[in-house]
């Protein structure tokens, strides 16, 4: 699997290259600035891009803008965005085109190599990887509203919803919560009924529906 990596801090870039190579990814390019990233994305046609939000030369949201532009040119181009902080605002922009293949994680998530690599693979396969913090922000907002159907979920269902919104498959959720996959499927069905969403067998579409629901303006 070919990866384009954009990160301006040498130590982190180097670490990420080693980590990804250790998990059999092929690093097509490891760049350190916005213009370089733009070129790499256009020319190298990677399977997935791992991009830091803040890049030289402006040190603003150069990386995010590059990723969004590249996805407009090539819809569905898998992009995993990394940042020192996560904002629902940016998550919304990344998800706006509704085509999946998007990840948005805190840089801290690299600490857990396996989970991080799993997220990269998921995004590359057209799935979603949203940082738990984004999901918690979304849920916290929903829960503040007493009329929201989210408040009617059982604690277990809420856990499942959180993991599902992060983009995890039923199998992964079952593993994480130490329950059977059938139990997870049941919870999922309940959640969809309570939230009034249409049940879909397609994992990706399911995640996008849940995220869209949580991000909807009240």
């Amino acid at each position, binding site marked *: 699997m070919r990866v384009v990596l954009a990160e301006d801090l040498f130590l982190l870039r180097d670490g990420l290259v080693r980590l990804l190579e250790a998990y059999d990814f092929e690093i097509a390019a490891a760049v350190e600035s916005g213009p370089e990233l733009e070129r790499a994305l256009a020319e190298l046609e990677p399977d997935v891009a791992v991009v830091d*939000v*803040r890049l030289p030369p402006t*040190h*603003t*949201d150069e990386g995010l803008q590059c990723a969004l532009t590249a996805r407009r040119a090539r819809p569905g181009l898998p992009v995993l965005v990394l*940042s*020192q*902080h996560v*904002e*629902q*605002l940016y998550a919304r922009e990344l998800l706006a085109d509704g085509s999946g293949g998007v990840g948005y994680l805190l*840089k*801290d998530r690299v*600490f857990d190599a396996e989970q991080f690599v799993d997220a990269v693979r998921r995004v590359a396969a057209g799935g979603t990887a949203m940082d738990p913090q984004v999901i918690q*922000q979304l849920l*916290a*907002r929903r829960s*503040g*509203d007493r009329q929201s159907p989210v408040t009617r979920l059982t604690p277990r269902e809420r856990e499942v919803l959180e993991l599902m919104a992060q983009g995890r498959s039923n199998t992964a959720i079952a593993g994480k919560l130490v329950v059977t996959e059938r139990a997870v499927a049941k919870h999922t069905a309940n959640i969809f009924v309570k939230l009034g969403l249409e049940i879909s067998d397609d994992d990706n579409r399911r995640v996008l529906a849940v995220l869209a629901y949580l991000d909807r*303006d*009240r």
Partner: protein
Amino acid sequence: MTGGPRLGQTDGMNTDTKDGGGSRTRAVVLAAVQGLVLALAVLPSTVLCLVLTLVSLALIPLGVGLVTTPWALAVVRTLAGTRRRLAQEWCGVRIPVVYRPVPADARPWTRTAGLLRDPQTWRDLRWLPVDMTAGFVTALLPAVLLLYPLEGFAVAAGWWRVLADGGTYWYGFVPVTDQPTALGAAATAAVLLVAAYPLAPRLLVVHFRLTRALLASPQEELAARVRVLTETRRDAVDTSAAELRRIERDLHDGAQARLVAMGMDLGTVEMLVDKDPEQAKRLLAQTRRSSAEALAELRDLVRGIHPPVLAERGLGDAVRALALRLPVATEVEVDLPGRADAPVESAAYFAVSEILTNAVKHSGADRIWVDLHHGEGRLRISVTDNGRGGAAPGAGSGLAGVERRLGTFDGVLAVSSPAGGPTMATMEIPCALS
């Protein structure tokens, strides 16, 4: 529903003369009426004020004056204040107010002494006699210029018979004795009327310029400005020193302490790795957790110093991101064609943040509207909520802090929060966008 209501537009200048004769005639008549009102009010009130003040000053040696002088001077100030307001509203002539602050709870003697030491008091008193003479004439002239020609026409229309009554009636410099001379008076009246056309509004402006020349003092204005700047600078320095202390403490107790602990743990791991690999693994996991916690703490700290979205996207998106973190539904409307200077952005952001926090904590609102726009060289922000109102600056509400923050940039905060709501906080900061 759009964003919150906008700030009131407060430029009451008479913008005229551009759209044809109709509005010009209206301006002439308006100037005459305004001048007449002014002249009729000027003479009695200035005479009264001058007499009151002089008597009060004369009574100071007897002690009575100590009590009456502040009161008399307050009346004078009200009179001058009214004239300043009219100058701004009628003719767009800005006359700055630069009285020195007098402590409200001071004793009569210190109060009177303080008032008498203020050069503006003496400027006010000097203004009174000039106002009742030259000021009176300049205020009356527009009306005279308009009414006197009317008399001239009346004279020509036959009124001269009554006025002259066999002798000579002087209309201006024209001796009216018969119909031809009466027509001469009418001609003079016409010339006067034509002259009144451009002159009347200008004469009113002259009146207010005269007032300004007497009441305003550029030096005193500068001094007042220096006072404000000194105060806001002290506030800014205090605030930033307190901020630095807080950051130092947070780093010292937080990230720094965690890094020390991690270093120690890693040392132990090094020692244990051969002897007790299991224990070493446990310690490594703990170290990783510590590093994650240190990162989270640093992230919060950074957010408190300068939020990353503000650096990356500017004020509009930073406020949007902030709104998305609130538990209350918040609509944000942004109309900013560029970015302000970083310090202004930061001050505005933290001011909005503080006000939003207040609204969420105390107002009980379930909807908030934030409106940001830029116009006339000012950044204007309004935050409106549909809560129960009753917010007041001071009262430990954090609004005083917002005022201080904005004061550094000559910004102002106004809060309207009647009991029962809604609460609307508006902020204005003079700044340019780039």
